[in-house]
């Protein structure tokens, strides 16, 4: 709370300096804004929101309060973003789960059409890693997949819960290659890293920020990733696509607002976000925090969202994903 007050007053000073020469016709918020984050404080989602929020304050001319709503695995937050007053003073940060939740959680009553879009703010790849001193530490990705195919279910693959992004990646690798892993649910990326180090599991598909320390220390070895651009941290690691394998469900985050927000207000936010995403301070903050930089305007984001929903729909149906009660 104190931080909000502090950053708020700092932003107010900045606002006076910057807002005046800004384009006068565009809509801007007239009072402090709530940015709802569907996760607790700390962690990738929250870090992303706090970094972006601090930069956007400069261009919005108003303080931006980060509201963490981790309840119900984000379901509560997604509903609140959808049902908010459409006046541009409550916006939300979403991840790819706004399109995948409906396929994996019973009773989810939101999908891509429940929101208006401001733009994409980041993207993160899943990196296939093995323990460097383990039985697969000397292999490249092709050799690893051959080994996995030779002995189905022999390689234990750590995933962070039921049909999370890590799990979808595991499924895509299996589908694309014909390999079969022993699927081992483990709570959270940090715990998967520990299980890799202790030898309990042999492989995992994790975000770069989750494995950076161990890869740099030579304890984990990255084999391949599911993004379309080279990894910022390890540009030599091949993508699955470059090997001709369809393993491509990288996650993204975006800003949204209620569906029936007036176009003028939505456009106002789109321009705030665009200015923030082009701010060098933001790019530097992302790099330090290990957040993958990726920006798309609203129109391109809708395309991204549509593609993701189609992909998750077909994979969930093919895999026979059982919806968990909510």
């Amino acid at each position: 709370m104190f931080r909000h007050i502090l950053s708020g007053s700092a932003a107010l000073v900045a606002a006076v300096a910057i807002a005046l020469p800004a384009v006068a016709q565009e809509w801007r918020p007239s009072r402090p804004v709530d940015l709802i984050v569907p996760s607790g404080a700390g962690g990738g989602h929250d870090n992303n929101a706090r970094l972006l929020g601090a930069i956007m304050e400069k261009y919005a001319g108003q303080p931006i309060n980060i509201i963490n709503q981790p309840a119900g695995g984000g379901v509560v937050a997604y509903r609140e973003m959808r049902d908010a007053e459409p006046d541009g003073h409550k916006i939300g940060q979403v991840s790819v789960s706004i399109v995948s939740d409906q396929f994996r959680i019973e009773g989810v009553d939101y999908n891509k059409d429940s929101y208006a879009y401001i733009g994409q703010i980041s993207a993160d790849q899943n990196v296939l890693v093995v323990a460097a001193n383990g039985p697969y530490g000397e292999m490249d990705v092709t050799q690893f997949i051959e080994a996995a195919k030779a002995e189905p279910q022999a390689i234990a693959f750590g995933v962070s819960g039921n049909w999370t992004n890590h799990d979808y990646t595991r499924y895509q690798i299996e589908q694309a290659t014909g390999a079969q892993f022993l699927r081992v649910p483990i709570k959270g990326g940090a715990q998967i890293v520990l299980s890799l180090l202790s030898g309990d599991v042999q492989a995992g598909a994790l975000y770069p920020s989750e494995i950076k320390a161990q890869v740099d220390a030579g304890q984990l070895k990255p084999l391949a990733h599911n993004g379309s651009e080279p990894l910022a941290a390890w540009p030599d690691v091949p993508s699955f696509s470059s090997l001709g394998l369809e393993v491509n469900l990288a996650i993204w985050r975006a800003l949204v607002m209620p569906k029936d927000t007036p176009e003028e207000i939505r456009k106002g936010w789109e321009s705030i976000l665009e200015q923030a995403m082009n701010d060098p301070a933001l790019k530097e903050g992302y790099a330090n925090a290990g957040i993958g930089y990726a920006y798309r305007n609203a129109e391109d984001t809708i395309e991204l969202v549509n593609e993701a929903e189609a992909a998750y729909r077909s994979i969930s149906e093919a895999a026979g994903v059982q919806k968990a009660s909510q």
Partner: protein
Amino acid sequence: MDFVSNIALGLAVAVTPWNILYCFAGVTLGTLIGILPGIGPLATMAMLLPATYALDPTSALIMLAGIYYGAQYGGSTSAILLRLPGESSAVVATLDGYAMAQKGQAGVALAIAAIGSLIAGTFGTLVLAAFAPALANFAISFGAAEYFALMVVGLVAAIVLSSGPILKSFGMLILGLLFGLVGADINSGIDRFTFGVPQLSGGISFVVVALGLFGITEILGNLERSETRRLVSARIGRLLPRLAELRSVMPAILRGSGLGSLLGILPGGGVTMAAFASYTMEKRVAAQPERFGQGAPEGLAGPESANNAAAQTSFIPLLTLGIPSNGVMAMMMSAMLIHNIQPGPQIISGTPDLFWGLVVSMWIGNLMLVILNLPMIGIWVRLLLVPYRFLFPAILLFCCIGLYSVQNDVTDIYLAVICAALGYVFLKLRCDPVPLLLAFIIGPMLEENLRRAMLLARGDFGMLLTRPLTASLLALALILLVMAVLPKIRRTRKVAFQEE
């Protein structure tokens, strides 16, 4: 040498103006709540937990740790002066400490307690610095099966070492495990016991259970008692003990430090156990055991040292294995998780600045406490004059703010009220809720590790017996349990806790 460079790193982190300030805030608050009976370190930490969002994780942990060991100092002050233990670990200090105060040696008693605590705190910190890295290196190779076995030992120890009848502790433990089941099952994603409330699918928050069962319940219990507080009018007397007095209690301080350090490391162990064990030990080795209870300085020095040493070393299981050994450590774990720090063997190598900063700050905090407690003793005593009718509404308000801010959701306040009602029933039934709290936090980890171990062993229960470390730990748990129910030991245990 590694050790020296590590301590240097710790000094660089701990001796920044902000961290010194947070350390000071922690130990001051700890002393305050230690002196005031009716509010413990657990409830205070639970209230402050959400406020640490805005802090750097190292500063947050430094402050929370300061509350914990600061309360050990403060607790003895009111025990010695008023025969009113501010903390359960200070109960022992009411025996010989109060007797000394009645003989006009209050100042000496306070000084002996503070000096003993400082020596023990230093000792405990050194033990932590020396053993934690080695243990963490070893623990890196632990798999799910080993963790499962370790947690079983922890839970059994929680029963054996808790106060009150075994059967009650066992019942509380089972309740805690059941509470821990609420929420989405990690393997299948299916919700358990959520009754369709989406807020419950992430599980019941630890802050809810801790504040409900400890914070609010403590207030209810205190409100029932009529407010009778006497303030010692007796002089505190001279503060500095003579050299001969110091020399005579030094062996007791050293014994207490060693015993406390050991008991602090054990799962389920903690400060109260350490204080009682040390008192029993001092009485046994004393030349004239009949002096105990009549103002024997060793009977004060030993336990006061032991509880402070244990307060330091009880951080070891959390910082090396990620397993909290008592309720306060469970709170520290929750504070680390809030800041996205996963407690476990990777803490020391992954975030050395946090680990060593915390260790060094504990020593600095201990030093601050001696300065805070001795010359300013008069001010602290005066605090006991604040009427409860002002104190309790304020505490309750802070509880509610804390509860709401965890998830920005009022559901947690309602849940805490339910927990508080439950806690009141436990209070009336004289059930110690600590096993419940421990089982609540260890239970989900226990389940996850057992199921993962079974999955990796392809469903073969035999793996629990064929992995040597797992088998030995499970055997240890069994022995502990058998010992606890054997009639002879049961009697000793009863004696150890009877003064409480």
